[in-house]
């Protein structure tokens, strides 16, 4: 029974939290905002566009078919419908009546797209490409050559020596999102944990609890309970995010992101555990809820530093910090995501983080134990360390 005492504590932490309205509504609110943002993206990505084109000659109709091929190949949500009117006046009337978007007809030295009050730019681009290619082909044939010959050697493409530009962009965006998640989770759960520790201390129930179970078991239960909740919350956010992404134009990045998220979860668990122990100590150093703000000040700063480091550091500093706990908790997964860290570096950083977490747990348990029964005002770290048991 004794070995499961921390489980009982963890269970209480979880139940207390998930029956707390503020926590529930906060989580739900964030999910709704996230789903909403992705929903808007998905809506625009999936919106079907239909262009109605009317022509007034068979040559026009043939060119119109070329335009349709190009436009529909460009974007599979686009459809072009073609119709032929008996003469220019009739075609012009069809556009005026709003039954077609544009009238495609020959003009001086080329083709004209005539709209009622505007001509859609998407259609203009598709038409320009299609008509230029078609006319070019005809002209080339007339001159006894071919388009391919004419265009030989004129192709221009781009390439980047330092990594993959697209991947770097995605890494930046996803890295930001993950750093944000880590920051928000460790801050909100951290503050809640510190408050729940000080609640136990202020209400003196800790005196009853610690005659029943050891202080370490209590600390372990509280940290584990919060970790489980934070993970569940994060899984919810990431899940909604990834599923949402598959409905948007960014769906092709989902497989790459999912892999990096795996690393992120592992680092999150250890890093969050490390920070949680410190938050618990911050709570134990206080005597009243009002004190928590000042005892947790260094931690709030540290958490913010980790967040901003994830956003702004670069180059050698980034490489070095990606091995330094607790910065490594978020910087290393980001480097994995960017492709700048091989797996052995990630493992090494993880090992260092685990070691640091182990050390922090030892120190935190001592501080926690010694400050729990001290109810005279705030304690400094030094006082807590030196306080006899």
């Amino acid at each position, binding site marked *: 029974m004794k070995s499961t005492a921390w489980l009982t504590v963890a269970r209480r932490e979880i139940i207390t939290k998930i029956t707390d309205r503020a926590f529930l509504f906060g989580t739900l609110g964030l999910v709704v905002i996230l789903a909403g943002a992705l929903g808007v993206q998905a809506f625009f990505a999936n919106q079907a566009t239909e262009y109605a084109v009317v022509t007034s000659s068979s040559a026009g109709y043939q060119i119109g078919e070329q335009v349709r091929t190009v436009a529909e190949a460009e974007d599979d949500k686009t459809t072009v419908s073609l119709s032929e009117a008996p003469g220019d006046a009739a075609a012009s009337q069809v556009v005026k009546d709003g039954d077609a978007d544009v009238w495609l007809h020959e003009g001086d030295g080329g083709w004209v797209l005539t709209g009622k009050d505007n001509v859609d730019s998407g259609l203009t681009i598709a038409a320009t490409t299609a008509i230029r290619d078609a006319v070019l082909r005809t002209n080339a044939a007339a001159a006894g050559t071919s388009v391919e010959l004419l265009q030989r050697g004129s192709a221009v493409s781009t390439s980047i020596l330092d990594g993959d530009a697209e991947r770097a962009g995605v890494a930046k965006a996803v890295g930001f999102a993950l750093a944000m998640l880590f920051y928000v989770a460790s801050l909100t759960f951290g503050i809640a944990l510190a408050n729940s520790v000080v609640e136990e201390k202020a209400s003196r129930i800790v005196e009853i609890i610690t*005659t029943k179970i050891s202080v370490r078991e209590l600390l372990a239960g509280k940290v584990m309970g919060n970790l489980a909740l934070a993970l569940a919350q994060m899984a919810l956010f990431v899940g909604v995010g990834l599923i949402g992404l598959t409905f948007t134009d960014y769906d092709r990045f989902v497989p790459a992101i999912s892999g990096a998220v795996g690393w992120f979860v592992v680092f999150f668990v250890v890093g969050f555990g490390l920070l949680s122990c410190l938050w618990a100590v911050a709570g134990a150093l206080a005597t009243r809820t009002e004190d928590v703000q000042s005892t947790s000040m260094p931690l709030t700063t540290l958490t913010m530093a980790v967040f901003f480091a994830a956003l702004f550091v670069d180059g050698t500093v980034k490489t070095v910090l990606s091995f330094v706990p607790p910065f490594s908790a978020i910087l290393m997964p980001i480097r994995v995501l960017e492709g700048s860290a091989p797996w052995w570096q990630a493992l090494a950083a993880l090992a260092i983080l685990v070691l640091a977490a182990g050390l922090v747990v030892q120190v935190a348990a001592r501080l926690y134990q010694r400050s729990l029964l001290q109810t005279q005002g705030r304690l400094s770290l030094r006082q807590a360390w030196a306080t006899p048991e």
Partner: protein
Amino acid sequence: MDDSGHGSLLELDGLSRSFGDLRAVDDVSFTVPGGQMTGFVGGNGAGKTTTMRLVMGLLATHAGEVRWNGEPMTAARRRRIGYMPEERGLYPKQKALDQLVYLGELSGMTAAAAKAAVLDHLERFGLADRAGERVEKLSLGNQQRVQIIAALMTSPDALILDEPFSGLDPQAVDSMVDLLREHTARGVPVLFSSHQLELVERLCDRLVVLSKGRVVASGAVDELRGAGPERYRITVGGDAGWVRDQPGIHVHDVDGSTALLEFPDSAARQALLRAALDRGDVLDFARQVPALSEIYREVTA
């Protein structure tokens, strides 16, 4: 009932604890036998709470040992002790039933057994209908009851209660006393501290008096009372001042027609009574057993 009780034995042997230069508990030794209620009295700052925390392992002892049936006290043993701290506390925002079940589980009970025990105790305190309420919504007296249940619900092997009666109305004191008697009837040692000496006098089989961190008196209440000099109170019809002129007796106090006297032997006692009858009415002549408060004042003076 023999002195060792018919159950277990909690022993404190030479416990000492200092906070900086302050020796809060100084070489404290006494026993709490099973099946008896031991009262723990002493002024503010005498070291009662510190002693209890030492017994519960909440503070480390600087010297001495706590023993349970002759064996050193262990963490597993302490889990089986019902403890009620002086500064009361429960989770203010959690429901009474839920947190009592939680504390029961931490003591090693199954959730079902804890729930049954809690409901039974709530019933006894007339709180059955408040089980689902948050503790902060309960009155202070009811919070106190919930706190007591936390200590008693596990059928503990011993009870260490710091000021269990403070804040209770007389009716609650009575049901609390009944409850404690049930536990002593099981042979459980009960140690409780209190400022209310009349209550201690009414309840306790044994008494430990602490002053400035030291035990100044300890033993069965009857022994402690009998240990002092035998005193007799005499009330006569007129002024009792004449007793001062009687040879061979010690006059402790004279107040109008009443005098408090000590006699070296029974012959002196007979002589005084005869002299009093010669002078007129004798309204009262009786052996005076000292009240606990007098013993307390004497030993802590």
